[in-house]
């Protein structure tokens, strides 16, 4: 096999910088949540912020709770105005710098249940998660 062909295959199995193709690839069930490690393409520079792009499937009136490994709340996805049988779309969630350790974010995804319990999201419920950098260029 030529070197070129090999590198093409590697590009598929190695996670894209700053993104994950699908949670199945690198997430694992960790108790009552699905846990995954996401890596920024580079460490944040001045004027840059980190964001999660979370793509959600058909979850009806369920919600997706996002926390860090240490339990810090990152946000709650609660679809509104979605017709029955439709996917809930992609959500843009700001990630505070202190939730990152260097370029890494350990993210936990769960679905709130009755009685304050949670369960791990399935790969149908959250179809993709990306950690991206935004630079808004407003001079900060």
């Amino acid at each position, binding site marked *: 096999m030529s070197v070129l062909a090999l590198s093409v295959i590697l590009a598929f199995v190695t996670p894209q910088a700053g993104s994950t193709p699908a949670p199945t690839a690198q997430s694992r069930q960790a108790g009552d949540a699905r846990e995954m490690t996401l890596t920024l393409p580079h460490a944040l520079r001045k004027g840059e912020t980190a964001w999660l792009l979370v793509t959600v499937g058909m979850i009806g009136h369920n919600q997706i709770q996002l926390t860090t490994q240490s339990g810090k*709340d990152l946000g709650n996805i609660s679809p509104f105005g979605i017709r029955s049988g439709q996917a809930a779309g992609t*959500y843009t969630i700001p990630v505070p710098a202190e939730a990152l350790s260097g370029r890494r974010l350990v993210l936990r995804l769960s679905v709130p249940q009755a009685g304050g319990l949670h369960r791990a999201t399935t790969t149908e419920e959250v179809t993709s998660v990306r950690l991206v950098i935004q630079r*808004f260029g407003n001079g900060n």
Partner: protein
Amino acid sequence: MSIYFETTRRDFLKTSLATAGTAALSRHLALAQAPAKYRRYSVTSQQGQKALVSYAKAIQAMLNLPADHPQNWFRNAFVHLMDCPHGNWWFYVWHRGYLGYFEQTIRTMSGDPNFAMPYWDWSDLAQIPDSMFNDVLTPVASAYERYTKDLQTFTAFIQPSLKNYWGKLSPAQIQQLNIRGYKTFDDMWNDVSGWTPTPMTGHLSHPGHFNPENTAFAPTPIARYLTLQNPQLSDSVKKNVSKGTVYSGLEPTNFATTYYQHIPIANPIKIGFNSSTTASHNTAPSKGTVFSTLEGLPHNSTHNYIGGGAGEGSPIPNGPWGNMTNNLSPVDPIFFLHHSNMDRLWDVWTRKQQALNLPYLPNSQQLPSYEKEPFLFYVDGNGKQVGPSIAKEYISMSRFGYDYEPGYGEEIIGKRNLVLAAKHPTASVEGLMKGNAATLTLSAAAIKTHLDSDTATSLFALVTVPRPTENSPNREFDVLVGAPADATNITADSPYYAGKVAFFCGMMHMSGMTDEATFIVPLPKRKEAFANLSAAAGNVAVTIRAVPSGGGASVLRAVTVQSL
């Protein structure tokens, strides 16, 4: 808007000499707007509480109207169900129109001509305000029971009049409803009743089933999940409405979000203030939708939590859900306070962009399709169908003449260093005063730059007018550019109208104060204001006047035009 860029002429000249002058100038440009006729106050303020009294009175009157009256309380909610955009870039502008007309209706119905919809700033108060549990301000009140006791009662009450309304819709309206997935009246009604025409698996003999997930109707007792004893948002919703999250939602500098989903690049997204673009405001959110942070997090989760959508600790995963969880949410009066706050945040974002000298509208390729989107279902304060109108008409709050008492987010405005303004050289031209009118010679090129840009304003006038005194009590002045000397009755839609400058009570002349003040007013972006432009080679003569808003001759003391 509450703040004016007010300074004495001498102070201005002093600062304009410093390099910081341009930045200071542009930072405050957005603040040089006229006070609005109506002010939307925080619901926690005394004025906000007072407004709730009129609001409750109007709701009662709207509940009492027959179902065939377009201002009937429930008919008003159906305007939202049939036409509201979610998960696209018309979310804010459509709701601005919806709230604006609703506010007019509340004025009519309450008999309070000064009513303005209070806003609920959940970043400051993460619970339903106590007074929103009073009387008809909650949809669980007994006054609603006659209509919403159960689905049968509601259907009998409203369905005949809605069917009749549907029958009279224009082809353009029907076309928009089709985009929403409503090909027939029954399609729409199924979203109200939850009826799903396909049989459940294993029950082929049944013609269909009720799907609680799709039921917009909520019976009175469960119409709202939160109660006076338990009014708090949950911890996770509190996180979504927190100052940190709202601040992040105000940060983007693009109007709409763009997402190149299928291109494998590290940064496939440019997050905008609005959700992603679609071809129609009626496009239902689904797979390709990207929700902006403010719509996706605080907006959505507040709706759902109030309506009882699976809250932490007490989730109701299988329903039934209350009003706020779906497109009939305007049945719950809290809807309009919630959306008033969303609308306020759009205004904050717009003024933040202006202060940074950044565009606050879609880019020039996208702007035409954004502006011409038809909104066909609004009802005005007199109960008349507004008829065809377009998104462009609802971009500015001046369409409805209101502004906001400052709330959370205001501090973001003008906080950052300016990128663009500092790069541009500034030039200023002083007006030659004759009587109380000024003549200025401006470069034709500068005027063309000013007129050509879709969004950015590059020419501003520093207008000096006398403070009100006992003998000359005028507090409001209209700044006119290039208006014929004999023109009277120039209104805000005139091409010569640059803006209104005004003094508050506290800005009356007092001893020790100069007897005049200077305001910054953007020049009109209309070529009629610069009559000799086409013929002129290098320079164009422009006249500027400042006339008392009630009528009368110009009282302008001095004017300087500055270009950025």
